[in-house]
């Protein structure tokens, strides 16, 4: 439990353009430790684009993105996108073992525990292409348990999860926030946490004004 919330991410007058069209401009917000922000907006509003630019996977057209610095290095959030980022040819275990998470490779034991935790214990040695849609998502989500990072950035993490899986993920987010983690997520469903979530709505920038 971190007593004084510190700012993990500061976004200042951010604007993103895709194929010559502004998605949004002038977006400013701050993400503090222990906080959960849900980004909302209709399909194609620019939620995914926002998240990717925050993680450096897309260059913003204007504005500033400032991550908390730890030892003079900007912190590396754990980004899980639309795609589960699971290699179909590797087994569930290898998928976690051979992909660096938050900058480092992991030991076997925490990986096995994480797989057990997402209810894939029976599938440790199963190639990921034999998994159902929800099971594949769970492999991706196991990374949340393994990452040692102050911030999660999750793009529609509830996709394909069954009711029990959604509940599990919500409780993980709660626990992480309680321990001082910061979470930025998108979801078209309502997210039920004990504490209220801040929502951040993305509204289309109207060109007429420009």
């Amino acid at each position: 439990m971190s007593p004084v919330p510190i700012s993990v991410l500061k976004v200042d007058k951010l604007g993103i353009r895709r194929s010559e069209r502004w998605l949004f401009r002038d977006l400013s917000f701050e993400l503090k430790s222990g906080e959960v922000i849900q980004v909302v907006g209709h399909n194609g509003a620019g939620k995914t684009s926002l998240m990717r630019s925050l993680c450096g996977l897309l260059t913003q057209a204007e504005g500033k993105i400032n991550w908390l610095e730890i030892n003079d290095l900007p912190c590396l959030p754990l980004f899980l996108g639309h795609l589960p980022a699971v290699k179909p040819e590797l087994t569930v275990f290898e998928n976690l073992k051979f992909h660096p998470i938050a900058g480092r490779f992991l030991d076997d034991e925490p990986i096995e525990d994480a797989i057990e935790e997402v209810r894939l214990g029976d599938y440790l040695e199963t190639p990921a292409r034999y998994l159902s849609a929800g099971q594949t998502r769970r492999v991706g989500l196991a990374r949340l348990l393994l990452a040692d990072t102050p911030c999660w950035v999750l793009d529609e993490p509830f996709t394909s999860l069954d009711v029990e899986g959604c509940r599990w993920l919500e409780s993980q987010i709660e626990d992480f926030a309680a321990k001082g983690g910061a979470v930025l997520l998108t979801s078209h469903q309502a997210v039920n946490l004990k504490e209220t979530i801040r929502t951040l709505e993305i509204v289309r920038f109207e060109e007429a004004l420009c």
Partner: protein
Amino acid sequence: MLARLLKRELLRHWRCRQDLINPLIFFLITVSLFPLAVAPGSELLSRIGSGVIWVAALLAAMLSLESMYRDDYHDGTLELLLLQSGSPFSVVMAKIISHWLTTGLPLVIMSPLLAVMMQMNSNAIGALMLTLLIGTPVLSLIGSVGMGLTVGLRQGGVLLSLLVLPLYIPILIFGAGAVSRAGMGMEYGGQIAFMGAFLLGSLSLVPIASVAAIKVSLK
């Protein structure tokens, strides 16, 4: 650092063994198609043998360059590695060494078998192995720069061949030339010396160029 990264690369390759033997199979197949296609006659075969084997090795190396950076680029591992390892040179060198170990070296080891099939004499076989041993690392080194430049592009494949092949040609000419001289009993020290010079030159230049190329691609 280099050792750890190299281990990671080799593990990755080991997990996709079938991709690993792909270039080797390609090499074998290409070479063994020639006796079928060229009117059989041992004298003709042994004369073109060195050229065929060298061209096949070059194509196999080129086709396998894709596996060097493309996958890691697309799942974001490449940028993570470059940012987190603190030593981009190690990353690049690990990639090049593992590419050579998994592509070049098997080709070298396999070549005598194919040479026998092409009815080359023992002199030529020795020269073939020697030239491939010096030449295949150069192929991996030069390929790394080309792949680094094209990894972010959609039309990667075509562009890669256009960039890389002209740089491969000198190696091909010297390598195949040395082997065919050896087959005719002539000495081929000059060619080997040139190839050695190429190897040293690219060893010293390529890592810098590769890192620069990848950094450009990641932007």
